[in-house]
């Protein structure tokens, strides 16, 4: 396989140093967002203002790397213009694609900027080729990011039935596989990814250290309790331990990261066009580690002389940065549909 037939490696950046780390370590594209609630990683101090964005775009383009702008939350009542302005600004900056979730915004972007390449965000929650083809027909969407709910066979079925490029997740923290539709955070604190661009916003989170253990609370609700030597996870409801019928356990999901190294050849064989890394909220160190590992794995596939096998140091590097210190293949290999 030559390098041009490999899928694009799409990496996250929440800051200029993270963007540079992605570019320097072999990303084909970097995705980012503005410093506001038009994107789903709206965390204090994270993301790009105009100055850093202009510099970031220049840095990436100089090195042949694409910039994808995530405007992937849903416009809130009375403030639709904020989201439209974000689309106009991104288009004006000359980004390579805008990643959108909201149908109204897709309609706006496709009419206002007919030459701008548009991607359908994972938050758009399109899991069938019918939904993806609809976005293609109505808004000219060129790529769709699949929610992490499909098996590999289902991903293949989608790819066979759509002209739209398919991007899948390759590494990162997992949600409870209900992309774009989860309101658990709103249940606890009135705010969730689709409304304010953040799950479990930090202002509601309390880490409470006590002798021998740490308690995590979201708006006062006890989410989990960790012993001193136990790995911790993000303070989201889906990853909490709750008492159900007298038993306390991870009732929804255990803190885990998705890691597709093992099935990389299959992912490529079925025609996936891009592989995405989660984690715009993480540091440049994470972006460096994950980007260079996935780059090495992808490049290894171009080596005709050697059969692909997952190197132990790739796994070690990725499991170190994983949430919950464990990795799964997620839905890709589950037996049920």
């Amino acid at each position, binding site marked *: 396989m030559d390098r041009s037939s490999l899928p694009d490696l799409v990496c996250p950046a*929440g*800051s*200029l*140093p*993270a963007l540079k*780390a992605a570019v*320097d370590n072999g990303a084909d594209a970097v995705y980012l967002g503005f410093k506001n609630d038009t994107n789903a990683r709206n*965390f*204090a*101090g*994270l993301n790009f203002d105009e100055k*850093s964005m202009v510099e970031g775009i220049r840095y990436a383009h100089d090195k042949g790397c694409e910039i994808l702008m995530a405007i992937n939350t849903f416009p809130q009542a009375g403030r639709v213009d904020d989201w439209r302005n974000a689309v106009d600004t991104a288009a004006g900056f000359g980004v390579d694609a805008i990643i959108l979730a909201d149908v109204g915004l897709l309609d706006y972007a496709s009419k206002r900027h007919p030459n701008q390449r548009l991607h359908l965000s994972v938050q758009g929650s399109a899991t069938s080729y019918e939904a993806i083809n609809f976005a293609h027909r109505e808004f000219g969407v060129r790529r769709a990011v699949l929610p992490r709910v499909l098996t590999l066979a289902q991903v293949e079925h989608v790819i066979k039935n759509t002209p739209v490029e398919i991007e899948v997740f390759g590494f990162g923290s997992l949600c409870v596989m209900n992309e774009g539709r989860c309101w658990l955070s709103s249940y606890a604190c009135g705010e969730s990814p689709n409304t304010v661009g953040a799950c479990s*916003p*930090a*202002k509601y*989170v*309390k*880490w*409470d*250290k006590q002798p021998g253990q*740490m308690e995590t609370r979201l708006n006062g609700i006890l989410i989990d309790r*960790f012993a*001193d*030597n*136990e*790995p*911790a*996870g993000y303070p989201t409801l889906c990853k909490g331990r709750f008492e159900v019928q007298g038993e306390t356990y991870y009732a929804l999901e255990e*803190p885990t990261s998705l890691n597709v190294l093992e099935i990389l050849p299959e992912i490529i064989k079925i025609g996936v066009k891009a592989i995405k890394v989660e984690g715009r*909220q*993480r*540091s*440049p*160190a*994470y972006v*460096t*580690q994950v980007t260079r590992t996935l780059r090495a794995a992808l490049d290894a596939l171009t080596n005709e002389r050697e059969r692909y096998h997952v190197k132990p140091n790739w796994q070690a590097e990725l499991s*170190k*940065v*994983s*949430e*919950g*210190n464990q990795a799964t293949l997620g839905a890709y290999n589950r037996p049920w549909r």
Partner: protein
Amino acid sequence: MNQGFTIPKFQLPGFVARLGHKLPQWPHAVALTTALNAAVKMKLLPEDSLAAFDGKTFLVQVLDTGGQAAFTYRGGFFRPLWNPVGAPDLAFRANLSAFLQVASRQEDPDTLFFNRELSIEGDTELGLIVKNMLDAIELPQLPKFPLSLPFGQR
């Protein structure tokens, strides 16, 4: 980024911390606030983050050296706190190796937090602002020098 050396995970022997506790703590706070003020002066720290720090108290504690620095940010300057009263608004606690790994961008704070090597207590949002502010600073290219430490590696 600094491929020239890696900082191993290490822990200083217990007596260092016991000794460290006995030393005056203000030199740490003075050193840290001087560095932070230099960063402010060089406009390395964004205004919106600094605005969120106003009047807040911070504690950085290095567990295995027993060193700690208490300081606040007021009127455009970071200032050491000589006699901090009550719990700080935000406290970072870790061994020296973890702080060095974060400072040199070798490890991601979230990774260390998940692994329980870095503890963050107090105002979580303030902690996030600090973390993201440090991440966003454009570091000058660090010199590449071999660093060998006399401690057992992992």
